[in-house]
Structure formats: C-alpha cells, structure tokens
C-alpha cells in the first residue's frame, strides 16, 4: 500500500444546489509528485469540486482528505499543506505583488515571508514585484497566484484552469513550471485544464468528469487504451465486403480507402481499404477467420491507440470541452 503517498483524496464528494446534483460521488486520489488532471466540459462540476477540495464549499456527502487529515474537521491543519488558485488568480489589485505576498505570508506560520524573493524569481516576477497588481497582465497575475500558493511550501497544489486566457507561450511557461514543481519538489498537483492537448502534455493521470460524475480515471495511457480496447482497424481488399463481413461481429465505424493503397477502385468498396470496427478482443480471431474464408485479402490488423480527445468525446457522448 502506498497510501501514505496520497496527498489529496476525494471520497464520494456530492454537492446539491436545490434539486440539482452538481457533483455526484466524485472520488479520486492525488499522489505526491504527480500531476493529476481534472477534465470536463464547462458546467461539468469541476469548479464546484475544487471549491469543496479547498473548503470554500461544504460537501453534502463525502469527504476530502489532505495528507490523511479530514478537511471538515481539521481545516487549518489540512490547509497548511495546500496552495490553491480557485477559478481566477484574484489578488489585491491595489497592492503591489510584494505586498500581496507579504499579506498572505502573514496568514502562514512564521518563515513564509523569507521565501518571497525566491518564489518571485521562480515565477519570473522579480522585476515587477513592486508594481501594483492592477498593472499586471493576466499571465503575470497567474504566476503571482502560483507564487502565493507556494508560499507555505505546500504538499498539494490545486490549480483551477491555470491556462485560461493565456497565450501559447504563457501556457507553455505554466506547464513547465507545474512539471518542475511536481518533479523537483514532490508536490502533488491537482489541475483542472480544459485544453486536451495540455492534459496529455502536462498530466500523469486524469479523471474525466461529466454532468457531476467521474466517468473515467487513470493514467493518460490507460485511458486511451481503455477506450481503444474494442476497436480494431483492418486493412483489407475488397474493403466493402470486409466491412460487410465484420459487421456480423461488431459495429463498423468507418470504411475508408487506405492511404497509399496499391490499387484504388472507385468508391464501390471493391478496392483496398481500412475498416474500423468495434469487436470484442475474444471474437477477433473468429472475425479474421471469417474474412479469410470469404476470400478477402487481409493486409494488416491493428488496435489503434486513440488520442485523449477521442476518449473524451466518446466518454462524454460527443460534447465538446
């Protein structure tokens, strides 16, 4: 059991607003040193979940544990291990960056104010630290927010849409920072991102939330493999008859001419083509025998590894992020 590695865990979190259940039975664990992505379309319950993780909202059911401490019962002890940005990096605009950091350092055990210079350098804000936050760009505010979150040397970093409103360069900066923090400091990072490409590049594991429920969770590779597990791609000739034959074993999703095929005969399906069908793994040999006995030439059979985007679309039923 590596349970002592788990720095943040949600157990059956449920939140109702009136009759509507905004978050239902959401559970996951975040381990030290990993980046955990939280993925879902807008309105799926991501922000409500995050508010419960940091104690801004009380769950109607379920529990949040931070390094094993029950958040509802040991709020101050638990929050000493957490740094967070919820929704947007809202800091005091009429204060300078330094004054903001000093303000939040005073809310932490002694010693936090000594880290201000180092953190400002880490997030590349040293030169602008004595300017008012109202003059900062969104990216600078995001970085100041991260510096603020790191003041207390947390074991858990919770970031809500840190890439929101940033240009590609800003997004890359934040991604590199997050990866560094988890790798070098062993921080467990919980991050909600709505850009799928970002999740793949940033996260070790993900949970997908949709309509308040976690529909899938696991490592990025696991999830991709899972969604792909019953998908078979067969390159055969003639493609039309191959598709017909395979439809007896599972739904045929697509039949297309093969790229770089040796011979292409119109669109009647008599040529070389690729057929994608969803066939359970144990029926694949049977399906291949059927193709061969039909006299169909089979060139390749493969299980495609789908992108997270495909996984996501499949799991959420085609709703865009």
């Amino acid at each position, binding site marked *: 059991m590596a349970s002592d590695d788990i720095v943040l865990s949600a157990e059956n979190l449920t939140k109702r607003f009136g009759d509507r259940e905004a978050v239902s039975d959401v559970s996951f664990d975040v381990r030290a040193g990993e980046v955990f992505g939280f993925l879902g379309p807008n309105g799926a319950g991501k922000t*409500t979940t995050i*508010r419960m993780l*940091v*104690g*801004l*909202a*009380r769950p109607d059911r379920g529990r949040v544990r931070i390094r094993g401490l029950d958040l509802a019962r040991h*709020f*101050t*002890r*638990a*929050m*000493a291990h*957490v740094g*967070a940005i*919820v*929704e*947007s990096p*809202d*800091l*005091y*605009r*009429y*204060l300078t960056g330094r*004054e903001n950091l000093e*303000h*939040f350092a*005073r*809310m*932490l*055990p*002694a010693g936090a104010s000594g880290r201000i210079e180092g953190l400002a350098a880490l997030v590349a804000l040293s030169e602008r630290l004595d300017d008012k936050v109202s003059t900062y760009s969104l990216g600078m505010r995001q970085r100041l927010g991260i510096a*603020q979150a790191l003041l*207390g040397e947390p074991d858990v970093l919770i970031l809500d849409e840190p890439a929101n409103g940033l240009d590609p360069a800003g997004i890359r900066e934040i991604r590199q920072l997050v990866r560094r923090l988890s790798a070098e400091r062993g921080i467990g990072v919980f991050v909600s991102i709505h850009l799928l490409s970002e999740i793949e590049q940033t996260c070790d594991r993900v949970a997908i939330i949709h309509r308040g429920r976690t529909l899938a969770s696991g490592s990025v590779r696991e999830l991709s493999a899972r969604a792909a597990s019953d998908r078979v791609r067969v390159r055969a000739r003639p493609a039309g008859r191959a598709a017909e034959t395979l439809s007896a074993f599972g739904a045929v999703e697509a039949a297309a001419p093969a790229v770089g095929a040796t011979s292409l005969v119109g669109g009647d399906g008599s040529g070389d083509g690729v057929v994608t069908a969803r066939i359970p793994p144990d029926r694949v040999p049977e399906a291949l025998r059927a193709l061969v006995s039909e006299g169909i030439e089979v060139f390749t059979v493969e299980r495609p590894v789908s992108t997270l985007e495909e996984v996501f679309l499949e799991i959420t039923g085609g709703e865009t992020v």
Partner: protein
Amino acid sequence: MRFPGLVENELLKFAKQRRFRVVVLILVALIGLIVFAQSRARERYHDKNWRVETQERMARIQNWLRNDRMPASSRRWATFELGRLQYHLERDIDPEAISGPLFARAFANASSYLLLPLLAIVFAADVVSAEFQQGTIKLLLTRPVGRARVLASKLVAQSLAITLTVVFGGIVAYLFGGFAYGWPGWDAPVLTGFRVGGDIFDPSTVRAVPLWQDAILVYGLAWFAALCVGAIALLTSVLLRSTAASMGTMLAALIAGTILPRLASQWEAQKFLFVTNLPLPDYYSGSPPPIPGLTVELGAAVLAAWAAVAVLVAFAVFVRRDVLA
C-alpha cells in the same frame, strides 16, 4: 497565523484603499467649514461689554442667594452659575462665548447623529463585501486560518479605524476651535447629569464637572455609538456581499434615524431601533430626548444589544456559508 498579523493585513487594506486619507479629508473640510461659518456669524453679534454684564449678573445672583426663602435646588444652581461666571472672569473669557474646548465637545454631540456613523460605514460597510467582489475571498479563506479568525481580525481592524477616526475628529475640532475661539478652558466647570423625566425638570442629579471630564464622556459615547454602527455595517457587508448594497442599506438606515423621531415621535417603539439611539452624547448632555422614556443608559443598552446580535449573526453566517462567488 498570528492574530496581530491578520489585523495588520486588514489595516493595510484600509490604508492602501485610501480610506484613512478620505476620512481625514472629510473631517478637516467639514470642521473647517463649520468654524468658518460660525466665526462669520459671531463677529456680527460680538458683545464688547461682556465684562460689565458678567459682573452685573454675578451681583444679581449674589442678591438672590441672600434670600432665605429660595428653594434648595435653585440655590445649588445659583451657586454653580456664580462659580462659572467667576471662573471665566478670572481668566478673562467671555462666559457666553464659545471656546476651543467647548467647540471640540460640541463637535462630538453634533457628529454623533450622522457624521461619525457615516465615517464608520466608510470602513465597515465593504470590509467583507469587497473581498467577495474582488474575488480575493477565495484566497483569504483557503489559507490555514479559520474563518472566525479572519472575520475577527476584520472586526478588530475596523474598530481600531473607527477609534482613530473619533480621536482624530476630536483633535481636528480642538485645533480648529482653538485657533478660532482660543485654546484655554478645559477646566471650566460645566453642568452635567440632567434628567428630563416627563415634564418636570429634576435638578437633583445635576452636578458640576470640569469640561475636560465632560468632553471625554461625550466622546466616549460618540465612539461607542460609532463602533456599534460599524458592527451593524459588518453584518450588512457579510449578508449582502455587495458593497453598493451594503452602503446603501446602512445609509438609508442612518437617514431614517434622523427623520423618524421628527415625523413620528409618538411611535415609542422606535426607541428600540439602533438609529434612534445614535445621539447618545445628546441624551447624556440633557437635551430633551425625541422619544419619551429614552435615557443614555437605555440608549447605550439598545445599541450594545444591536451590535452584539449583528456580530453574532455575521460570524454565524460567515463561518458557515459556502463561497461560490
């Protein structure tokens, strides 16, 4: 973590939002204006023969006092008045003229209705709602500090700011008053302890105290009333989560408090409203209360009760409510 640090944070926010500067400016501008207007009006009626007149009045009172059939209460008053005139004559001050110290005390009376409560609202009405509007509440409440401590630090900071405001108001009033009307007179005797019970004037509780003592009491009462207004404004700030709504509500209440007693003085239950009890210094100084049965003790008790309930509700709501803004 350490509570003084939290209070320091809140005071820093007041200062950086220019709250102190605004309050100082308002006080200086307003008091300056009052002194200017008063001195213009006074110049026209200034009596140059006040010494002779005062001596004549003292002689008249001495004649009365020789009269044996005079009631004891009147005798006490006459003795006091004689002492008061004597005090002023010895120091070469017109007893009917206003002095710097007198002006400073009068400022507490005049400002306890509206000005000091207003300045209290400047600090307190957005102390929580601003954090909601700026979104900073999310950071403030996700630090390892309990919500009750966060709100307590805000209550302490706003109370400190209100205290500073009252002290500063007194200092500015004395500076302007002293400059315009002369600096001495803090130990001039004044009458205090008036009770207006029904239609009868009861002088038995009246006694003479030096002006400085009286002024400290009057400022204390004005300060107490302003603190209570601050506590109630903290509640509206917690409940409404919008600075405009919170300020508007408190302003409406204060204005209602100045109108109600005049328009509907028969409605006695209004003595249990907090706004009716803000002029505590007036009730203490003996001007007839707008509502029968109102005394300074009752007024202070009503205000304290309102403030205590407001603080309790504010804490209960603030500690429990989900932050979804």
